[in-house]
């Protein structure tokens, strides 16, 4: 009897299982279908236009497949200079952000959360303010008779006004200011997650504060710093507004050149090819980084 019962319930379970499974699958699909509208927007605005640009970049003058748009990049010295400038500006901006962002993130992470929230407004306010407004503010601050030149001359740092804007210096200052929150926010979050007992233990085992910092805290904060630096670096690679305004035509990055090609020559093939190179460089950086460090969570705010 018991055997038969058990057998009966087993086959009954199987029966339900199939129905449940079907229902579950249907349910999964109906829930997942909610992403469709968002995906349509992304397909229309990102995938189709990007594929089009990709196609255009391989189109020769005669309308057939050709690599001439890419070949041009290796031929002209102007392209070489643009790539060098782009990497130079991106690397220097990232380094400046680390130098300024690390101490501030550390300071904020040490504060009680309540106070950290208050001081964090200093990071969030510029983050939320239009980058045009901030670029404009730097234009004013850095000009020949601007507050920075006047101050430096009064203190005696230099005698005659020096050119701080419409060149590389101005671009770097403006970009570092705009990018700083992108480094501080992920770094701060990573630092907050460091177990306080680690530093306790280090101190308990005889490490002095400097030793404890460099050998325990710093390595633990490194993933956050790398994630933040990569965001900054990748955003810098494609930056347009700040070099255009604060560079005064002397700092030409890839984005600026893409615009210039379209404005002056209306050469879609050349502009697209340069765009594809920019996209590949960006994706490659992120891919390598994702491989090396597991920072998906820090980068995208999701585990």
């Amino acid at each position, binding site marked *: 009897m018991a055997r038969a019962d058990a057998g009966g319930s087993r086959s009954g379970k199987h029966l339900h299982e199939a129905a449940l499974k079907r229902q579950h699958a249907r349910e999964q699909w109906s829930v997942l279908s909610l*992403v469709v509208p968002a995906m349509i*927007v992304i397909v229309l605005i990102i995938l189709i236009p990007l594929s089009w640009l990709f196609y255009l970049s391989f189109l020769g003058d005669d309308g057939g497949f050709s690599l001439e748009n890419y070949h041009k990049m290796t031929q002209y010295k102007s392209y070489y200079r643009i790539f060098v400038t782009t990497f130079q500006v991106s690397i220097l901006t990232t380094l400046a952000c680390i130098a300024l962002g690390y101490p501030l993130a550390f300071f904020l992470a040490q504060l009680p959360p309540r106070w950290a929230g208050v001081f964090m407004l200093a990071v969030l306010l510029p983050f939320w303010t239009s980058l*045009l407004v901030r670029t404009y503010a730097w234009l004013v601050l850095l000009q020949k008779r601007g507050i920075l030149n006047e101050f430096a001359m009064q203190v005696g740092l230099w005698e005659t006004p020096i050119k701080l804007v419409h060149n590389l210096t101005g671009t770097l200052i403006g970009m570092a200011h705009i990018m700083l929150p992108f480094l501080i926010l992920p770094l701060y979050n990573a630092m907050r997650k460091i177990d306080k007992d680690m530093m306790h233990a280090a101190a308990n085992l005889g490490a002095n504060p400097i030793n404890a910092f460099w050998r325990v805290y710093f390595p633990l904060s490194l993933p956050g710093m790398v994630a933040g630096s990569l965001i900054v670096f990748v955003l810098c690679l494609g930056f347009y507004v700040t070099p255009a305004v604060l560079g005064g035509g002397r700092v030409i990055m890839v984005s600026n050149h893409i615009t210039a090609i379209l404005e002056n020559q209306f050469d879609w093939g050349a502009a697209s090819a340069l765009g594809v190179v920019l*996209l590949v460089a960006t994706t490659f950086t992120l891919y390598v980084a994702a491989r090396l460090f597991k920072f998906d969570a820090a980068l995208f705010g999701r585990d």
Partner: protein
Amino acid sequence: MNWWSRPAADTQITHGNRLWLYVLSAIIMLLLVAPTLIVVPMSFSDSQYLEFPPSTWSLRWYEEYLGSAKWMRATATSFQVGFLTMLVATPLGVMAAYALFVSRHRATRAIFLLLITPMIVPVILIAIGTFYAYGRVGMNNTIAGLVLAHSALALPIAIIVVTAGLSSYDLSQEQVARSLGATRTKAFFLITLPQIRFSVITAALLSFLTSFDEVIIAIFVSGGANATLTKHMFAALRDYIDPTIAAISTIMVILSSALLLLTQFLGSKGKRN
């Protein structure tokens, strides 16, 4: 023990030892905030030139701004596009975030990566790409075209904010409602949505601001009577400097500060609940 020699951290380092860090942090915070706020006093200057601090004060740049048909038209466009972007990106973002959060399907990771591509692809590429595609279908210089492109930019932000809200919410409440007979839709609107409302509002505000502050796509895709505020501002900054920009900047700073404080307030309220 006074404050100075009290330990500041677990390694028994004192506040006195840490003084350099406090000074350095104060300087960096000043560097972050000052350039954002400097436009406020500048906008009240009476001078044609960019001088700081201003020697004489006036409201002439505000009069100039409010009296200019071009700037008023651009401001209206920016608000309109920002508002419509918010109306498109918020519901789409909530739907996508909810689906990706609830679903256990294998494809969720790939879909998530696809939906956040607007954050990874350099904006200049989105700008020239949509400019080219819109050229083919006659959507350049239209409000609808700009709203669609800005919605793509705002979507990943909305999705990330709402996902964060969902992860601090206990989904079993919705299951309870459904086991008591509510449909999934009903359970979502009656149980889940009220509890993640603060992240949804934050996502909406951020979507608005993303569109309102966006420059590069607007330069390419907007124009004519539908040119945005940022498009005109960029042209003004690159070609000739007009102190009217300071007045407009001040208004933009006030707007973003207000929205920022609102989200901070909502955030702390959201945590308390």
